[in-house]
């Protein structure tokens, strides 16, 4: 019999950069951000699945989502609840705006200290930045060991987890004491579908800021049922040094942004001549399409 664990999944709502097809580009060849839907970061869904499986292994465990973002990010917390998560925390404050990975990790680690967790599971990386930094940076801030690129939790022991990691050229199995931070690869099992019963149960779940615009029925439902309350936290709700939040807490600064200009839709016809192929390769390299 495994002991009950408090599991927290770090997740992010991201623009769907994988869907940047031709429709999502403007005539000038820049990104039309409005055309990109906001989605649950794909590897965070793998992380959620691993968390839900761990919950099933350890009777009495709970899974909560922790996300930082604007109010609409509450959508991914509801999505997670429809799939089996018990609830969530939305960390939302203008003071977090402009955070780089380090300032984000600082805010998340402060929130995690107040929430408390035995196992923290995150996706390896988010598709809007692909940095893979936040998981390890949170682990360092909390002084916890980490297991990156996790694919499966092989065994749950009294005070440790046995985890299989997928690396570029193979697999590695490690034993890691808990509390710990795991980051999960897309090679881990896919997320389970939403469950109709859970959708019915949690469809009114909301953060306090959403209550103002909610219907009378929804407000009444949430008022009567604690499990429909998604926790909303501001900088004031976590013990932190505000200098380390947002722009002031971010050592990296964006100096310049250039849009990658995509080619017009009409096909350019080329021959198999050396000149044509050479100039094509030079163009692909200089436009950062390759390399």
């Amino acid at each position, binding site marked *: 019999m495994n002991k009950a664990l408090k599991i927290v999944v770090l997740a992010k709502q991201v623009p769907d*950069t994988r*869907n940047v097809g031709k429709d999502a580009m403007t005539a000038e060849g820049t990104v039309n951000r409005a055309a990109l839907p906001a989605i649950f970061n794909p590897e965070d869904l793998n992380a959620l699945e691993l968390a839900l499986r761990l919950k099933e292994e350890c009777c009495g465990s709970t899974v909560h989502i922790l996300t930082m973002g604007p109010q609409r990010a509450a959508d991914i917390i509801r999505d997670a609840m429809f799939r089996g998560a018990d609830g969530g925390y939305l960390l939302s404050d203008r003071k977090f705006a402009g955070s780089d990975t380090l300032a984000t990790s600082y805010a998340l680690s402060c929130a995690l200290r107040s929430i408390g967790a035995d196992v923290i599971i995150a996706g390896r990386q988010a598709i*809007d930045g692909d940095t893979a930094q936040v998981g390890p940076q949170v*682990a360092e801030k909390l002084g916890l*060991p980490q297991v990156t690129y996790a694919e499966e939790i092989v065994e749950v022991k009294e005070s440790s987890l046995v985890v299989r990691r997928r690396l570029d050229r193979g697999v590695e199995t490690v034993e890691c004491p808990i509390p710990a931070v795991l980051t999960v690869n897309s090679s881990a099992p896919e997320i389970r579908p939403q469950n109709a019963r859970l959708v019915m149960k949690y469809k009114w779940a909301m953060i306090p800021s959403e209550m103002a615009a909610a219907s009378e029925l929804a407000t009444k439902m949430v008022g009567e049922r604690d499990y429909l309350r998604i926790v909303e936290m501001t900088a004031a709700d976590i013990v932190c040094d505000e200098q380390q939040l947002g722009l002031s807490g971010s050592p990296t600064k964006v100096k310049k942004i250039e849009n990658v200009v995509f080619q017009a839709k009409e096909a350019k016809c080329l021959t*198999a001549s050396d000149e044509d192929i050479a100039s094509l390769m030079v163009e692909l*390299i200089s436009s950062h399409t390759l*390399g």
Partner: protein
Amino acid sequence: MNNVFVYIEIEDGQVADVSLELLTKGRELASTLGVKLEAVVMGHNVTGLEQTLAKYGADTVWVADDEIFAPFRTLPHTATMCGLIRAEQPQIVLFGATPVGRDFAPRVSSALHSGLTADCTQLEIGPHKDAKTGKEYENLLYQIRPAFGGNIIATIVNPDCRPQMATVREGVMRKEECAVAAAGEVKTIAWKEYITPSDLAVTIIDRQMEKSKINIKGATVIVAGGYGMGSKEGFQLCYDLAEVLGAEVGASRAAVDAGFCEHERQIGQTGVTVRPKLYVACGISGQIQHTAGMDQSSMIISINSDPAAPITKIADYAITGKVEEVIPKMIKYYKQNSK
């Protein structure tokens, strides 16, 4: 003090290519700044690597040699790197964007509270003026990287915190031996002072290096072959091009049915749907069955001997020619022009 550090990754007793590429770039940055280039090696039985590292420009080779460093574990590497950085105060530290570098470099940045930019494609030295405060900086590291799924290119700087840290993927930078080897003076890292017993808490139970799974869904560049590749042997050209471009190999249903490659690589209605940044369709006619699975690619290049093949309708570039003639030329000119 103020030197440029490069973390050296060891693969099967040899220095990994990405580390030699970083030394070449690091040498250039150190020369621009007028400082030394120092290599940092952590591993077991790693003596004798200093000659190679010196050839690629390392003035100093810092070594921590003990069985706790191999195979790689996050915490001993992090503690040792942080200890060395605190003692030596480098201004720049570069890591390969490998599973190892991407695992422990963020921890180092978190522990030292300094910025880290992932997967840089260019590194340069230049001035910077803070738009808000008007404060001016000289000789910052420009960390240039694609972001937002590759749709924008961002230049990142790290004005106030040190060291400035970046990771770079393998194959992005060029490696080149120096005309005259640097000194490569070996120094021992005082790692025993930096590591605590809790750094050894994670234990490796088993390691099996094997061929990794095929991952065409997640690939940013795909080279796909069709029936026009002619044979299983002819299809090999797709693998050759993919290897050079760092791409995955896909195939049309006709190629899979003909036995040119395994079913897992099939793209289209009965295979997987992909949306890579670049899709190179080799000897693929472009039946709707196939194009349904790839027409959302950001850029499509088709190679086909028939200029009227349907694939050219959705292609951004349509090369009319034989695959066995065009693909080797693409490989040749990519190699000639990439950094």
